[in-house]
């Protein structure tokens, strides 16, 4: 590992350790043992095949959600719309999954994924296009679109696409056909593999392709990008469409691989965790994978920790918030570690705020 990679990993790593240390203090204050708590947390997330499967399933939408934020961030855009993009992806993938039958898996499953992805591309693209043409701030527009998506998907799953089997009264779609279900290989869900491949693909696009060069140029210096002949508006709009696609794939994988259907209210909040993941990964698409695994592990093991050590599972949220706090405030970590203000890439959290 080169020095510069080491340095860029140091702050998130230190943040995780600090978060866990403070978490340990909180556990002690509840009269429980941090050793028991953390070991049962790890047991619950990695202890056996089921635990590992849970961790990987939890990590999958987090990877997609993290990529959705990280990719947009490279163009200097703050995508707060992961939640809405995930929801439309989930409902449209489910719709193709249950609405069509008689297709072989190798056509049906990709078709369902693509339907979800397209819905996300449109959802993200709306925010990008408005930004490019009218200057409407993507943060505001994506937040608003989250509400629209939430209500739209609620309505779809309660009305035209409602599961009318038995005497179901819940707003949910029917189960997707077997031919549209994402399989699991042992303890490894195929959706997770798809997420990892997507993360690597994002990294390749950003670092090796001309499109990635355009995205990064717009993110670093919009004026210089214009000087370089890059269509700044188009790049912003298309970046948001890509970001929407990524978040939507996370939703599609939830519908097709985990829940087996779309159900209103089940995926609430999942899209927002992408922001946490992207920050922890310092907007690096490859860093998104370990960041999502860490958070996925904590979420998968939380109930076992509660059961074994008697610690409230909300502690996990506190630890996550602490980690995020230390990542967002690297000065504190540097001071604690006596690190020199390195030339590691500074993640500017305010990027995109206040400049149109």
């Amino acid at each position, binding site marked *: 590992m080169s020095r510069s990679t080491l340095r860029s990993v140091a702050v998130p790593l230190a943040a995780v350790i600090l978060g866990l240390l403070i978490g340990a203090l909180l556990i002690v204050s509840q009269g429980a043992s941090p050793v028991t708590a953390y070991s049962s947390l790890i047991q619950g997330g990695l202890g056996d095949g089921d635990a590992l499967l849970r961790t990987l399933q939890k990590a999958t939408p987090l990877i997609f959600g993290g990529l959705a934020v990280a990719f947009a961030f490279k163009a200097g855009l703050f995508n707060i719309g992961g939640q809405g993009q995930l929801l439309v992806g989930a409902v449209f993938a489910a719709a193709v999954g249950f609405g069509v039958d008689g297709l072989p898996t190798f056509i049906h499953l990709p078709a369902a994924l693509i339907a979800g992805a397209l819905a996300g591309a449109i959802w993200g693209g709306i925010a990008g296009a408005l930004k490019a043409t009218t200057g409407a701030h993507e943060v505001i527009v994506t937040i608003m679109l989250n509400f629209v998506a939430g209500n739209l998907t609620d309505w779809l799953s309660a009305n035209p696409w409602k599961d009318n089997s038995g005497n179901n009264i819940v707003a949910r779609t029917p189960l997707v056909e077997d031919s549209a279900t994402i399989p699991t290989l042992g303890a490894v869900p195929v959706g997770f593999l798809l997420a990892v491949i997507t993360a690597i693909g994002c990294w390749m696009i950003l670092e090796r392709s001309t499109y990635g060069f355009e995205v990064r140029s717009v993110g670093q210096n919009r*004026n210089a990008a214009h000087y370089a002949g890059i269509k700044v508006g188009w790049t912003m709009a298309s970046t948001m469409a890509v970001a929407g696609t990524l978040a939507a794939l996370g939703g599609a994988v939830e519908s097709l691989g985990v829940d087996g259907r779309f159900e209103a209210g089940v995926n609430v909040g999942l899209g927002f965790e992408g922001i946490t993941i992207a920050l922890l990964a310092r907007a690096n698409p490859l860093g998104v994978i370990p960041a999502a695994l860490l958070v996925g592990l904590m979420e998968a093991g939380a109930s076992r920790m509660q059961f074994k050590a008697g610690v409230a599972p909300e502690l996990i949220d506190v630890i996550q918030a602490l980690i995020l706090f230390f990542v967002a405030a690297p000065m504190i970590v540097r001071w604690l570690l006596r690190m020199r203000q390195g030339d590691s890439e500074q993640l500017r959290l305010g990027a995109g705020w206040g400049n149109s």
Partner: protein
Amino acid sequence: MTDLLLAARNVTKQFPGVLANDDVSVELKPGRILALLGENGAGKSTLVNVLFGMYRPDGGQIIIKDEVVDLRGPDDAISRGIGMVHQHFQLVPPMRVVENIVLGAEPTKRGLVDLDEARLRVVELSTKYGLEVDPDALVEDLPVGMQQRVEILKALYRNADVLILDEPTGVLTPQEADHLLRVLRGLTETGVGIVFITHKLREVLAIADDIVVLREGRVVGTTTPDQATESGLAEMMVGRSVVLRVEKQAAQPGDVVLQVDDLKVNDDRGQLAVDGVSLQVRAGEIVGVAGVEGNGQRELVEAITGLRHASSGAMAIGGKPLTNSSTRQIAANGVGHIPEDREKHGIIAAYSLAENSVLNRYHRTPFSSRGIMHREVIYEHAQSVVEEFDVRTPSVTVAASSLSGGNKQKLIVGREFSENIKLLVAAQPTRGIDIGAIEFIHRRIVEQRDKGAAVLLVSAELDEILSLADRVAVLYDGKLVDVLDANVATRERVGLLMAGITD
């Protein structure tokens, strides 16, 4: 009577990796003008920032009015009578002149700002020192020369008896600059001492009482105007003999390459900034556009290179109409552009030199094909630009932000010159860079001309225009007031045109 108004004794200031001031000593006595001369990065700004309390020195002493002081910040320096006029004015544009002057030290009556009292004192000061300005005008409506007066008044209002001016003449016409120098001379008669930072040798000889030359953080010479010459000072600044005049043959103009007809362009605020300019630049000639900054040069250049839309008129390159074409289309027609603001347009600071070396060419072979960048080819290209254009850098993979201004500029010039160009648009190509890099870039621009390129050179430095241009076009208030052949374009004549005086 104080003997020393302001002095630095053996001041040392270290920044990570740079010794910005190394055992520097300077003295300012009442009623005298001290010129600090040196290239960018020589340590002038660091020194005055130490004297103004912005930085704490790592070693040495600061003396204000015969007393050794430990400045805790600019407030401390101001309260001890030090005033500073920064290169970038520290004014609030939508506020009135009088409000700007008293801001932070307002006279009050029953807890409220007493603007009448403030106005009286401002008028009193401006008549006393010959710095006439309308106290009720909005600062944003004032020309830069006036804004500078407001800055000086701001310092005098706070009873400054030392004035530090950082590159004060950069934004002025030659005539305005002369007036400023007279005002400064008048100020010294009341006992004020002035520290004057500049890189213009002519001004130093005209106004200074004492000259201190800095190079690489050290004082390399202390002299007075009657003992110094321009070339002697330049040699001291650079550390070797320099050629101040650009050696070039007479131009051999060919066909018209750039044709601009009745072009009208708006500025960012939607005001007409270029007002019907028509201009031709032929192959093998350099047309210099002179003018005080803010008279439409930026908008003209941006419209020609595709960065800004023209509201009417026409522009053609090599006979091909390209009005309001994209930057990419225009570049594809053989146009190289050295942008006015290299940090804003010319480079991406976080990118490596390699990425910057293909900033506007990344989409073409051999640098990429089918959407994939070819990193090895880009590295080789960057390597050859770095070598050929003498960019001082440890490698092409470091971020461009680590380069000095001169090296950044050489990288941009190298990138733009790395393929054959029909038209070169060079805006402020040597702003803020050292004499060595200036010489180098001037030579390369003339070389492009001799290879048959048409060159449009826009510069706020009249000396640069006069030494490079074959024809001089003068912009005033968005209009082209005149185009002179180089042999009749004297400093005086161009200076008057720059002020809009056509007699």
